[in-house]
């Protein structure tokens, strides 16, 4: 159980605490090496940081500029594309109906179904629902997709003409002039999605530049892909009648590529982090190879049923990721794996649901419903995935954020599915269904939030109470055994966080902090007492809550406060103890100086030798008393030396020989009561041997083994029949003192003559 001693070795490797190593046994050597490197890195990173900061910062600034400029240029270009100033709705049969227009020439045609778009010189096309379907990525049927791409291209060409002739179902036509759509018409959704895309891209860049490695590179690949997806979603949100070239052509291949790259990167990352699983290289290669094998024919349009293939492969890769994380958690109980597994499950299941929803909606062949589902569902799913990505680097920063996010994610998933359900089943209008779903889920969110927070809070309250109790107990123990402070602190923190490992390493950590993606909490061992002159040490805890939870910065703050409280409690205890000992010292001084001097005068003036001896003994008792008061504890070896010298002097003065045998297995520290009790018992018994028994030899045998003290004092005097002795002041005093120490005393005759007094104290350290 002693963590401090187990890690006191000179080796820099971490060694697991004994009670927790069961799950580590399987992977012990590998992990420890990995960990020591991690600790090494985190402890010695500061000086490298400044050196690398220069070029990384420059790249980061360049990346940020490129990102912002790209978004601005896109917006500018989009605002310059020509457009017919009209709004269209789809009829249940898949035709377009003019819903409203800013152009007065179209006003008479509001409510009419569109029968063709053309120009005075060019043949017309019949735009149907596909013309307002923004994304080729979410069209299930291969032919529909090709048709959509063709229609968008044609519409784009037409819109670049001077005049566009719209033919309506009632045979009437209207000539309109396409105008630039202007930056204001891009809509709030466009800006929100591009903003999110930009943020995701920037976080990816920051992460990879902060510590370039394979893992962060993969993370950045996911971020960039998802940023691309979000940009496309943003552009698609502006669709009125056809997408401008070349976006309509690029939409399908780019978005498939983005999805597949993300999948491969996720699988690759799950094989690497939090732990490299066996054969991680093969897994990573397989993932990338299969994605390329699927992606190339899809993008070139060779593959049939491309949508199904893509959807299925994304789902499969997601499930592979979840499986990999579960395996990785078995190998190393890193809580990061659990959290990621949960997120993965959430993402994969919603993906499958989304796929099914889109598929069912299109199977019904009601084009308007299909369009709505295919338009709203993916947006929400991609936003959800992007926020997951954003959250990942900050998982260990705060528990609060985690809690709120998981609640929000759950609630928004519910909201989305409710929305889709209302649309699909009750055929509500989009506005109605969204409002209804929003209200329902907001109510749910408010209720669930309160409930979850209450649960969390009440549990914490209990532990706080218990912790304070423990804190003060530890403060007292630290006072008694300053060398055990680190291991006591480790025990306290173990109860609080239940980590899988908690060890003390001989390295200095400047502050309490969370490292290793929240798997590890590092804290410096505080200097609790001034007596403690040990090398700087840190406590390292890994895998909170038996590997179920990540350490957060809240935990670090809590630990900081606990350590601070402990220091305060120890300082307080020490001050109290110091005050006590000062007071004792003062009393001892006064007693000794005043009463001692008077007794001395009394002794010099004594009328008879008996009186003189009596006063002398009183004076000696007083000295023992004051000595005991002044020194709080006496090591047995020191006390024994003084006993022997004192008794030898007394006995020699009376021409009595002393036989002294002392054995002890541990040099215990005697308390004042024990020291003065034993001193006076021995002194009294020797005095008896001299004064009453007239012995010529006294043998003292003192044995301390396994906390059991046996003391026998044997004389060879003429004393007999101890049971018949009158229990005078002397022997009564001996009994009283032995009883005070929790022991027994008995007197026996020994052959050929003499008395043996046998004192047994079975548990010396139990009494004060």
């Amino acid at each position: 159980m002693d963590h401090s001693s187990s890690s006191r070795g000179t080796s820099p490797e971490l060694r697991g605490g004994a009670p927790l190593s069961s799950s580590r046994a399987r992977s012990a050597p590998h992990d420890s090496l990995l960990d020591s490197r991690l600790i090494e890195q985190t402890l010695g990173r500061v000086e490298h940081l400044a050196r690398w900061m220069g070029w990384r910062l420059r790249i980061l600034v360049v990346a940020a500029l490129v990102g912002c400029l790209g978004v601005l240029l896109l917006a500018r270009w989009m605002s310059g594309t020509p457009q017919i100033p009209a709004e269209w709705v789809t009829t249940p049969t898949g035709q377009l109906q003019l819903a409203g227009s800013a152009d007065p020439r179209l006003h008479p045609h509001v409510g009419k179904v569109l029968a063709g778009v053309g120009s005075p010189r060019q043949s017309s096309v019949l735009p149907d629902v596909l013309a307002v379907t923004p994304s080729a990525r979410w069209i299930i049927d291969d032919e529909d997709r090709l048709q959509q791409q063709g229609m968008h291209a044609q519409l784009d060409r037409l819109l670049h003409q001077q005049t566009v002739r719209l033919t309506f179902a009632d045979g009437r036509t209207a000539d309109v002039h396409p105008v630039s759509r202007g930056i204001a018409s891009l809509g709030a959704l466009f800006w929100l999605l591009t903003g999110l895309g930009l943020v995701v891209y920037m976080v990816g860049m920051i992460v990879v530049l902060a510590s370039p490695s394979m893992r962060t590179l993969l993370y950045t690949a996911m971020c960039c892909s998802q940023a691309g997806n979000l940009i496309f979603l943003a552009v698609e949100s502006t669709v009125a009648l056809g997408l401008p070239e070349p976006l309509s052509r690029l939409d399908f291949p780019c978005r498939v590529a983005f999805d597949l790259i993300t999948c491969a990167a996720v699988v690759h990352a799950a094989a690497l982090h939090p732990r490299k699983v066996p054969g991680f290289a093969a897994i990573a290669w397989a993932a990338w190879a299969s994605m390329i094998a699927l992606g190339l024919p899809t993008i070139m349009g060779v593959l049939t049923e491309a949508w199904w293939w893509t959807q299925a492969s994304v789902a499969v890769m997601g499930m592979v990721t979840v499986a990999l994380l579960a395996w990785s958690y078995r190998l190393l109980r890193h809580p990061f794996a659990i959290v990621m597994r949960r997120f993965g499950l959430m993402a994969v299941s919603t993906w499958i649901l989304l796929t099914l929803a889109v598929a069912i909606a299109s199977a019904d062949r009601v084009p308007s419903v299909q369009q709505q589902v295919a338009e709203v569902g993916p947006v929400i799913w991609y936003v959800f995935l992007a926020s997951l990505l954003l959250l990942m680097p900050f998982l260990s920063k705060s528990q609060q954020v985690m809690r709120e996010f998981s609640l929000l994610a759950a609630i928004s998933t519910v909201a989305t599915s409710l929305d889709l359900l209302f649309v699909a089943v009750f055929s509500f209008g989009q506005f109605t269904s969204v409002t209804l779903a929003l209200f329902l889920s907001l109510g749910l969110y408010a209720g669930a939030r309160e409930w979850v927070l209450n649960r969390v809070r009440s549990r914490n309250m209990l532990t706080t109470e218990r912790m304070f109790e423990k804190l003060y107990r530890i403060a007292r123990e630290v006072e008694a055994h300053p060398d055990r402070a680190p291991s006591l602190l480790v025990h306290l923190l173990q109860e609080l966080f239940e980590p899988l490992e908690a060890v003390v390493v001989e390295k200095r950590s400047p502050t309490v902090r969370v490292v290793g993606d929240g798997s590890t909490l590092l804290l410096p061992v505080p200097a609790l007492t001034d007596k403690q002159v040990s090398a700087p040490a840190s406590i390292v805890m890994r895998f909170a809550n038996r590997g179920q939870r990540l350490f957060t910065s809240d935990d670090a703050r809590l630990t900081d406060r606990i350590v601070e409280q402990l220091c305060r409690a120890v300082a307080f205890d020490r001050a109290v103890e110091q005050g006590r000992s000062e007071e004792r010292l003062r009393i001892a001084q006064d007693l000794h100086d005043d009463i001692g001097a008077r007794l001395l005068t009394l002794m010099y003036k004594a009328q008879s030798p008996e009186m003189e001896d009596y006063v002398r003994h009183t004076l000696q008792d007083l000295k023992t008393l004051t000595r005991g008061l002044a020194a709080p504890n006496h090591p047995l070896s020191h006390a024994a030396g003084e006993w022997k010298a004192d008794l030898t002097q007394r006995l020699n003065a009376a021409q009595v020989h002393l036989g002294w045998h002392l054995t002890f297995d541990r040099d215990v520290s005697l308390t004042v009561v024990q020291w003065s009790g034993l001193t006076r018992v021995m002194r009294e018994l020797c005095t008896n041997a001299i004064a009453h028994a007239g012995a010529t030899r006294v043998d003292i045998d003192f044995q301390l083994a396994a906390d059991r003290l046996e003391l026998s004092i044997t004389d060879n005097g003429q004393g007999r029949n101890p049971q018949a002795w009158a229990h005078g002041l002397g022997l009564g005093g001996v009994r009283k003192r032995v009883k005070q120490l929790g022991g027994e005393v008995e007197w026996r005759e020994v052959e050929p003559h003499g008395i043996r007094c046998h004192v047994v104290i079975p548990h010396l350290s139990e009494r004060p």
Partner: protein
Amino acid sequence: MAIKVLIVEDNPVARSFLCRVVRESFSDAIVITEAGDLESARRHVGPLHAERIEATADTFKLILVDLELPDGNGMELLTELVRYPATKIVTTLYSDDDHLFPALQCGADGYLLKEDRFEVLVEELQKIVRGQPPLSPAIARRLLSHFRQGPGGMGALAGLGEPALASGSGFQSSRPLPLGRGAPLDHERLTPRESEVLTYLSKGFTIKEIANLMGIKWFTVNDHIKSIYKKLNVSSRAEAAVLASKHGLV
């Protein structure tokens, strides 16, 4: 020629008792000077300017000093008399090392415990004068740690010339003296034999037992003890000189 003895003791009863002890201990003619406080003791000793006072018929041969005096601590006097050629003995009621050890460091040649019996005191006094100073286990232990750490680092002259002396209890405070010395000199080190003797003494063995245990003669053990005393005194004297020159006294 009579031997001059100075007894510094405030309690008149104790003073007359000590006078009896001194007269009983020596067969020579004895002239006892009594002083009740530090001031009169200083008057009796006379001015202490010379580098080293020559032992003449006029100087005291034996000085008994009580530690607790009305106008200060006996150790102040001992410090002033560091180079005075007399046998200086501390008479006290304190038998613990916290009080006795600093007194020995101040140059006392031995100590007498005032509550001891008359015969015991006579014997002890004779032994000290003969060069067999007492050494209790506690003081032996203190000596061991003192020499192990080096006198310079232990505050060898705890509270030398300090007002803290007057408080009477401030001797535990071992103030490190920054003497700026490197390796300990010869008189600051114990020989292995001396360490061994001290170790046995600290465990409560008598000189006779130690002689048996070490397989050497009784007086050899006593020589070691004397040598240890001398080392303690010499080192404290050297430090006193350094301190004195620092304070511009010499």
